[in-house]
């Protein structure tokens, strides 16, 4: 039955390769949509705080 084992192994390898190829194609076709890691609102708050502090210091 060694031929049957070899056939099953070959079929498994072929199926695995097909799945990998399809997965790679899908991954390449996907629009990568991960959101940006920075928090824009926090950055705006920090910028405004710094600007207001600098302008207040300049007025003194």
């Amino acid at each position: 039955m060694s031929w049957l084992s070899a056939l099953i192994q070959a079929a498994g390898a072929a199926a695995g390769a097909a799945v990998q190829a399809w997965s790679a194609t899908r991954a390449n076709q996907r629009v990568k949509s991960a959101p940006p890691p920075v928090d824009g609102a926090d950055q705006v708050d920090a910028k405004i705080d710094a600007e207001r502090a600098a302008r207040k210091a300049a007025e003194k």
Partner: protein
Amino acid sequence: MVLLVKHRYAMSWGFAVAAVALLACTHQNGLAAVDATLAATSAAAATIEPLLLTEYEAAQRACPLTPEGDACVKQVRERWAPAWVSYRAFRAAWLAVDVAADAAHDTPPDLCPLLAAAGDMHRAVAPLGTTAARSVVAASLVLDQVRLLVPSCTQDGGVR
């Protein structure tokens, strides 16, 4: 005028990509629907987030350099806080679906939390009444329609 043009651009672009998502949702391939919805989310966020930040910054800049101005800045931040909380939750849900979609082979990731987060953001941002807020509401309403086409999603974003 510039804001109006940007607003119209964001609206039309958001609607176009969301229409693609709607079409994909009616398709048999669940992964295609997920990919299309993520693409629509990405495109809408790429146009709307900068507008929201610009309006948020402008509202704070309008406050004078007086003690009343400090209170004014605080009020602006408090008024916008629910919007940013919901936007952060939306981005977290978006990232989770994006990571799951990258790893997916034959089972599409669950879209329900992302669609529910979009609905929550719509409700949190709408009261601001700004130009960008109206764009968020428009985009979220389209995502709400997508949710209706995903039979596994419950009204509150859970899974049946």
